């Protein structure tokens, strides 16, 4: 069982959370983004073997999105950060559940 330290609620079991997958940034200028940019945003992923940054939501708690630096091989979490305005944006729409 992975345990995740929600920045607002503290350490909880993974079952309380949803994983939104690796961090991807929406096109900065949606109105003028090309089809290729939307395709990259929607479908293509780095899918890193090792340490990467992903987004999680405390679905059964505060329902807030936050960032987790987690190793995809040994599952160790090295950092958890609140989503700050301007740092990056949370994914909208569907979550991989």
């Amino acid at each position, binding site marked *: 069982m992975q345990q995740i330290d929600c920045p607002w609620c503290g350490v909880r079991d993974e079952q309380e959370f949803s994983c939104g997958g690796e961090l991807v940034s929406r096109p900065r200028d949606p109105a003028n983004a090309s089809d290729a940019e939307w395709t990259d945003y929607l479908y*293509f992923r780095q899918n890193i073997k090792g340490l990467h940054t992903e987004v999680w939501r405390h679905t059964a708690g505060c329902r807030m999105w936050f960032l987790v630096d987690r190793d995809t091989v040994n*599952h160790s979490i090295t950092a958890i950060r609140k989503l700050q305005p301007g740092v990056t944006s949370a994914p909208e729409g569907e979550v991989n559940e």
Partner: protein
Amino acid sequence: MLQRYSLLSLFKNGLTGNENWQPTWRSVEPKKSYDVVIVGAGGHGLATAYYLARNHGITNVAIVDKGWIGGGNTGRNTSAIRSNYFYREATDFFERSLQLYEGLGEELNYNIMLSQIGVMTLAHSEHEMEGIRRWANAIQINGVDSEFLDLEQIRKELPILNTSVNARYPVVGGFVQRRGGVARHDAIAWGYARRADELGADIIEQCEVTNLLQHGGRVTGVETSKGKINAGQVVLAVAGHSSHLAAMADIKLPITSMALQAMVSEPLKPFLNTMTVSSVCHAYVSQSDRGELVIGGSADICNSYAQRGGMPVVEENIRALVELYPCLSRLKLMRQWAGIVDITPDTCPVIGALPMSGLYINGGWGTGGFKAIPAGGETTAYTVAHDSPHPLVEAFSLERFRSGELVNEAAASGVAH
């Protein structure tokens, strides 16, 4: 000359203490250069090598693997075989695979222990039954066998299933694909390995690919833990690690790697004569020839390359099993494991050329790569030999994510993922 397996050979070798069997495949060191190098000696890689030789006469082929034959997802699945998909593209492909499986034991001269016990999908509400009618009708329209079952028929065929109206998720009906079933997963890898080896392909185990060599926009070989191997064409058949290998050529894929778990119980006397699948209870279960129950369910919740899963999914699977079969509540589990699967946005595979000349992929199998092995190998071999996609996999190109022509098969995977 390959030693043929038969009742007579079994008898003769039995009389001589089983000491005169030939090795099933050669153990070789890599040559400097091959026409085709296949990365990944799982079912798909080995089948690709076999069909390259048999169908296209391409025998100067190496299959390299960082571990051993069939040690990845080929040895980590629930060995389910079915072709009850929804869209024509997927149905045609998986039906071809099922047909190849039906003749594979004879073709390979290797007992793959195919048991067409049928795959029964259960509905737990009238609304789900509506969806299942639509699904089963689509299968029939696509020319594949599927049969509706009402509650009485299910009770007759599976008396031990919990069909009480007081169940938490009462069964209301379902459908069955009678030709679906299971096969011996290791035998698929070993059978293809044996025949590919006989036809001239070199199988090189313990040989990890560390880089893809390229020159002028074309792949020229692989750098491995056993040195450099030049190649005219390179095939990545490494589902679970597709993104990791493709990244060596700076190619991003629409794939996320996740852990999918399965487990087996202690052996029981034969009592379950079909595979049952429940999307609502979230489990599928069959009984192996050894009597063990083979149980699978949903993937774990986040990206993983760890080949082990978390307990919450195990608990969910067991809860589902006991809901369907309350008589199993005191059953002990023997083993539990996970494989790393390639999840694509439309849950269909990615087969064909990658955006680098001479480089091909056979991956993106999601949670259903085992059933696809024969057709996956056949179509990948064709695609490599002709440098043009096999008609059955035109719809599964990487390009579909750019053109928007996704084949959204999410509704037809056995259980939701």
